[in-house]
């Protein structure tokens, strides 16, 4: 599904922050991307959701070399990936319902066909009463759940979550992890970037440990 080969990344003329990353993400797999705080876990995540091109090396996504893709083809590939951003990236002038429904709107689905599904998911993540609320009035945990709901609503083949439980209490963190596990069982590959060891201990999964710009894989 995803293949990194000798991938390197530097920002501008700065030093290389990622060096010789080589790993694969298989279909239906579950992995944590971890490392100490400040290790740069967000950088490989940005490469994975095509927000950045690598400085060197090869990345293939769903069988496509991303260096050869057109902008439109990249947009089509991104539709197969769900992303939970560390800073949520909810659109402030749109309601929680609209934020979650946005990926379906972008692919041109009619509202009649997705409304029930969006409402059901919002209720499942505990935001049934907050559908009309705008993000600025949501708490950190509510924003987190809305961001997760938006990432999974289109049933992506690959889900990337950057510190998805960073702003929620342990019981909700457990519930969200269960959501990811359920999604994984239904066929979605999951990559969770986290430094929360307690969270990783709750589920036995492959770990990609980022240390000094290199990745060490622990199966």
């Amino acid at each position, binding site marked *: 599904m995803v293949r990194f080969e000798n991938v390197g990344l530097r920002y501008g003329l700065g030093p290389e922050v990622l060096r010789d990353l080589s790993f694969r993400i298989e279909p239906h797999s579950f992995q944590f991307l971890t490392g100490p705080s400040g290790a740069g876990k967000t950088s490989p995540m940005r490469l994975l*959701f095509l*927000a950045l*091109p690598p400085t060197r090396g090869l990345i293939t996504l769903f069988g496509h070399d991303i260096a050869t893709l057109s*902008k*439109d083809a*990249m*947009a*089509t*590939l*991104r*539709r197969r*990936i769900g*992303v939970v951003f560390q800073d949520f*990236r*909810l*659109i*402030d*002038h*749109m*309601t929680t*319902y*609209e934020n979650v*429904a*946005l*990926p379906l*709107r*972008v*692919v041109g689905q009619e*509202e009649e066909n997705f*409304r029930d599904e*969006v*409402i059901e998911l919002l209720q499942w993540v505990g935001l049934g009463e907050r*559908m*009309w*609320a*705008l993000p*600025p*009035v949501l708490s950190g945990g509510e924003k987190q759940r809305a961001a997760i709901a*938006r990432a999974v609503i289109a049933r992506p083949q690959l889900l990337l979550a950057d510190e998805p439980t960073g702003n929620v209490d342990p019981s909700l963190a457990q519930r969200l992890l269960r959501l990811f596990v359920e999604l994984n069982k239904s066929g979605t590959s999951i990559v969770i970037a986290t430094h929360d060891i307690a969270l990783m201990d709750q589920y036995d999964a492959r770990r990609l440990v980022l240390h000094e710009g290199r990745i060490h894989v622990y199966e």
Partner: protein
Amino acid sequence: MNDDIDAVTAAPQPGAMPQFVTPIVPKSTIAGRALVAIVAIMTFLASLTTGAVVLVRAAASDWQSEVAREVTIQVRPVGNRNLEADVSRAADVARRFPGVAEVRVYSKEESSHLLEPWLGTGLVLDELPVPRLAVVRIASGAAPEFDRLAKLLTEQVPSASLDDHRSFVEHMRSMGRAAFLGGLAVLALVLVATVLSVTFATRGAIATNRTVVEVLHLIGAKNTFIAEHFQRRFLGLGLQGGAIGGGCALVLFGLVEFLSRNFLGSAAGEQFGALFGSFSIGIFGYLAVALQIALIAGVTALASRRTVNRTLESFE
């Protein structure tokens, strides 16, 4: 539901189904009022130019057809020839010529009236070698051969010459063409200024909505999807500005037409009427202004789309 970013919460709708109604590009993030004002001013100026061009072309065409229906015979006093006899012979030649409806010889008094503005009153023409004129009116629908008439005149009255006003008509034509080209140039400048204003406004809107654009990108929106939303918003602003500017121009033309009709009896009104006819831009003029509103709104939408596409290309 409120699309204003300042609103902190949408109206609660207990029991109602949620709906996706908020525009992706919020109104408040575009310098809408300023842009509407710019587009309105540009449309107003373009409409005034179009109206002026229509008016000048119509007036020039009226003058041309008026002038083209007449030619002038000029008889110069030469040596010891009898000027009066020469004038009446030249008039006879013209009267007998096919296609001529009427020949009117200007008397000495009328000739002195014509020269009054330059030489003053109390002029005694006998003391000056002033040529005499005869105005030849062409019959309706006829196209006399002026070259043959001129030849005939010089054969029978050597001191007579024919002026068919060709150079004046040509001058009128050139003026009409110049007015039209000038109007086109002003319209082009207005369009360029509109495109530049919209480009800056769109860039500003994209910068303000950068987070929205990034999120849309990352959830798989194609550039065309994002550009369409900006284009829709700017088309609305363009139509609004165009309608205000064009509407004001139409009202102004209507008002001037009304006033010129009401003041037709006055001296100023008569002079105005002589110059510009009825001072009406006619159906064609009003239609041209309406088309201009649509053109400027369309240009606004396309300029924003182009700017969004170009900005998005450099985004990643």
